[in-house]
């Protein structure tokens, strides 16, 4: 669109034609207040706060609905405008309670800010206020009618933004009220409720304290918390969530999760898990002391020193007597990249074994190897917001990756993106789709072949509801797209995924992403928590990148083989970090009776219950480091909460390695390098294969007058090594540290590709829903409450919420 010139408060401005005056002013740094306006949602012009004077127009105009025009002359602040806004505020305050001192929004309230600015504290209105009792719409959404200023942001957010339409407006005039979709007279308990996805976006959008969150309401005041932006631990989208934390006698308690500054990769969005499901961290059942099994069989609390001594001694003894190959290691989808990297390095260089695996929730090895040697083929989460056309094969982003679904809905709504969906289920996003191909159950392999050009595969896709022609039409429409973003669910993997990508990458302007289930599922695979692949999906054979490891060249045992070995009595020790394989893979507890089992976890999970040593671990909200989301977007994790008596997995791995007598400077490049002593930062001169290369982090720290890493417990020491060695992780340090996301492309060397067809398919999609989150989700009271809440009502078919327990 061509630019138009206009004047605001005497300043010459330009903006593309069609830009709303309010937005154009915002871009130019001129604030026009508004309650009802919300970027990206439909226009309402209900609140009359954004009124401005436009020359040659008879009355004050609403800046939120007026597009800029050539030669327009605008006044954004004047006594007349201030008086108009003040009058609006007086009307709003005419029925607004004076409970600011206890209101959740107090201090963060747009109505307060505006009243402060325009001074509408005195009022002409002496009428009695129209009080109504507060309503509990769901375990997480509460509604205080008197506080509501009827901006309708929540109604539009729920309908347009979330495609749920759980909120409406009833009655009219000053007795208008926001009404949820389950009216009191139709509810079993005679109270109004919402039947929805419980995302809490209505609470986020509410400019006042009318909608409040069940986890946070009346707990504290906004200014009494510290706010830490970190990454949500739940799904693979890796949204930024801002945790409000408060000191307690035994650490630092998380009291609130929200999307405070909207600066993250998720923009406006945060789902129920990011918003409410931090409460596992405050769970009473957390283990806060190391426990060691006594000869009598009972678990006894011991000091950290005793526990580490015991584990270190046993690991060394078992490695030396029965060999590294008798030890298994299982990593986590929720630990940081640094911890995952350190764990596999510890396994490969200290324990001397490749028997390392994790719960794989998507086939990233195939994805990375299929894209080897190519650039710009892997998509970022941000692409879902801008791509002109998107195809989703398998998966259900609405419940598995809510931010992806939000971006796609926004893209379709605001940019008219074309969405193509092929799925065996009628997933909710099909309501935004231009074309929906409903394939027969269990036919994702055939779908991959068909999309890749194999016409004979269509027979496996058809069923009474969909004939072959419909699939051909679907494929033709997709192929006609000039640019396409392809999102692949975890249903497609191994040879199918390879076939699909091999074909897709022959087409120009195709980008791909593979969706997985947890915050660092991608990172765990990228960091080499795999028996046959080193970090960066580097093959064991013929690898030179990790020559300094001297790792065994034979692939190790995978997840299932580890437990098979245990059952045969061939597994001397198993080291489980932040994972619950016994429950996830249905392992027979008796198979581990002859294995020395060390578990690092927050809770007494099914796996931890069998352990010989339990080390209480910190969760992702209690540590720093980095994580990589499904798309390969790297983000910084910051420490928010704290709990006395737990330690990060990073520290525990380091301490165990130390107790085993490992060369710590080889394991972690801290201090002055492998053989140096002293407290100088390693400037890179003394680092093995890469001697002479500058340590970019240290250089940056030195340049910024900051301390270099002096501690072996500093995860950034490992980040240095990740950056130095792991293909694809050529990250920008400043970008990471300033809290921005950066997209990393897989960069597998084409010299040594794995034979995908020979790899066992060990992908086990977690199938988490909006209200579950693996083992961790079981310890979130709020998620349990929401599951219970869902079970009370039969599914309406309206919002398509599934509550399969995991």
């Amino acid at each position, binding site marked *: 669109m061509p630019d138009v010139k206009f004047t605001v408060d005497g300043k010459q401005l330009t903006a593309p034609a069609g830009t709303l005056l309010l937005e154009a002013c915002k871009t130019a740094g001129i604030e026009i207040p508004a309650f009802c306006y919300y970027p990206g949602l439909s226009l309402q012009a209900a609140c009359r706060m954004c009124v401005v004077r436009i020359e040659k127009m008879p009355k004050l105009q609403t800046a939120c609905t007026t597009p800029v025009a050539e030669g327009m002359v605008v006044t954004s602040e004047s006594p007349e405008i201030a008086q108009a806004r003040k009058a609006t505020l007086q009307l709003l305050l005419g029925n607004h309670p004076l409970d600011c001192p206890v209101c959740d929004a107090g201090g963060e309230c747009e109505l307060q800010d505006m009243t402060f600015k325009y001074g509408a504290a005195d009022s002409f209105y002496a009428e009695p206020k129209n009080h109504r009792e507060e309503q509990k719409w769901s375990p997480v959404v509460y509604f205080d009618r008197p506080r509501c200023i009827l901006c309708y942001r929540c109604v539009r957010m729920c309908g347009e933004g979330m495609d749920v*339409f759980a*909120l409406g407006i*009833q009655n*009219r005039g000053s007795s208008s009220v926001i*009404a949820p*979709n389950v009216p009191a*007279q139709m509810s079993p308990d005679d109270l109004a409720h919402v039947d929805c996805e419980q995302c809490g976006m209505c609470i986020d959008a509410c400019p006042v304290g009318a909608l409040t969150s069940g986890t946070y309401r009346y707990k504290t005041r906004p200014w009494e918390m510290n706010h830490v932006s970190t990454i949500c631990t739940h799904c693979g989208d890796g949204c930024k969530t801002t945790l409000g934390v408060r000191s307690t006698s035994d650490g630092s308690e998380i009291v609130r999760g929200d999307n405070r500054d909207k600066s993250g990769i998720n923009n406006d969005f945060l789902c129920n898990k990011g918003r409410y499901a931090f409460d596992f961290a405050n769970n009473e059942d957390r283990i806060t002391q190391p426990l060691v099994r006594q000869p009598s069989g009972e678990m006894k609390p011991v000091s950290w020193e005793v526990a580490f001594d015991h584990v270190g001694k046993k690991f060394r003894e078992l490695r030396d007597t029965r060999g590294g190959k008798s030890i298994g290691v299982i990593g986590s989808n929720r630990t940081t990249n640094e911890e995952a990297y350190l764990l596999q390095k510890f396994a490969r260089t200290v324990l001397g074994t490749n028997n390392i695996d994790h719960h794989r929730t998507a086939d990233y090895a195939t994805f990375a190897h299929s894209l080897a040697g190519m650039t710009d083929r892997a998509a970022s989460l941000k692409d879902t917001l801008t791509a002109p056309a998107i195809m989703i094969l398998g998966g259900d982003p609405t419940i598995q990756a809510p931010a992806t679904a939000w971006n796609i809905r926004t893209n379709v709504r605001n940019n008219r993106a074309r969405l193509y969906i092929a799925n065996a289920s009628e997933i909710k996003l099909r309501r935004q789709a231009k074309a929906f191909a409903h394939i027969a159950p269990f036919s994702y392999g055939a779908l991959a072949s068909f999309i890749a050009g194999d016409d004979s595969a269509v027979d496996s896709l058809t069923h009474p509801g969909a004939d072959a022609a419909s699939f051909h039409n679907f494929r033709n429409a997709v192929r006609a797209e000039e640019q396409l973003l392809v999102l692949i669910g975890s249903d497609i993997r191994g040879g199918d995924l390879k076939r699909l990508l091999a074909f897709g990458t022959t087409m120009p302007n195709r980008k791909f992403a593979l969706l997985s289930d947890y915050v660092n599922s991608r990172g765990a695979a990228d960091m080499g928590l795999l028996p046959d692949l080193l970090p960066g999906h580097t093959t064991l054979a013929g690898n030179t990148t990790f020559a300094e490891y001297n790792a065994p060249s034979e692939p190790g045992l995978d997840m299932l083989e580890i437990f098979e070995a245990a059952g045969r009595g061939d597994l001397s020790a198993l080291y489980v970090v932040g994972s619950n394989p016994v429950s996830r893979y249905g392992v027979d507890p008796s198979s581990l009776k002859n294995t020395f089992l060390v578990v690092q976890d927050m809770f007494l999970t099914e796996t931890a219950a069998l352990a010989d040593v339990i080390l209480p671990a910190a969760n992702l909200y209690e540590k720093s480091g980095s994580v990589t989301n499904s798309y390969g977007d790297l983000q910084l994790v910051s420490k928010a909460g704290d709990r006395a008596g737990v330690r990060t997995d990073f520290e525990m791995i380091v301490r165990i390695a130390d107790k085993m007598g490992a060369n710590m400077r080889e394991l972690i490049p801290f201090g002055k390098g492998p053989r140096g002593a002293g407290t100088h930062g390693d400037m890179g001169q003394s680092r093995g294969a890469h001697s002479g290369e500058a340590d970019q982090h240290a250089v940056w720290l030195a340049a910024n007058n900051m301390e270099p890493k002096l501690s072996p417990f500093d995860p950034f020491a490992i980040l240095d090594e990740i950056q130095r060695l792991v293909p694809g992780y050529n990250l920008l340090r400043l970008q990471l540290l300033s809290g921005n996301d950066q997209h990393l492309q897989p960069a597998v060397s084409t010299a040594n590709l794995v034979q995908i067809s020979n790899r066992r398919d060990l992908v086990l999609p977690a199938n988490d829903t909006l209200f579950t989150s693996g083992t961790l989700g079981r310890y979130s009271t709020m998620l349990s409450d929401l599951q219970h809440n869902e079970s009370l009502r039969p599914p309406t078919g309206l919002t398509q919420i599934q509550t399969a327990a995991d």
Partner: protein
Amino acid sequence: MSTVANTIFSPETAARFDKLVTIYPLKRSALVPMLLYAQDEIGYISDAVVTEIAQRIDLLELDVHNVLSYYSMLRTKPAGKYNVQVCTNISCMLRGGYEILDHCKHKLGIGHKETTKDGVFSLEEVECIGACCWAPAIQINYDFHDDLTPDKVDVLFQMYRDGQGKDVK
């Protein structure tokens, strides 16, 4: 033949609704007329009415409730057999509309939007019913009575009690 199976409406109304859906550019435009016809037939907008209308024009029940609650002429509880609507807008007010309203309240022993115990009368204070020339006026169901005094109202009520009033639908 109705497009909705097991419709709660009479065949005539159902047929009328089938047609209504087809005559607007947007289906949802048929909402308000449908609500009015449904109220005439059923007596009020019951939950079943909401459900069927939502189904007929592809709206959520919540959307129907939103519109329904906006209009004061749509009711969600049964009215009496004779719904007495007393106008108190300016012409009627000047000519004693409030007197009539107070008299009705006293006589029937009920207030605004209430129904007598026997279910014969219900009372509503309404905005202008378009009978300003003959104010004060009331409307009983769809029948007008104008140029009223409290005495005339008494006669009217007795007439309706005796079953001699017109029951215009």
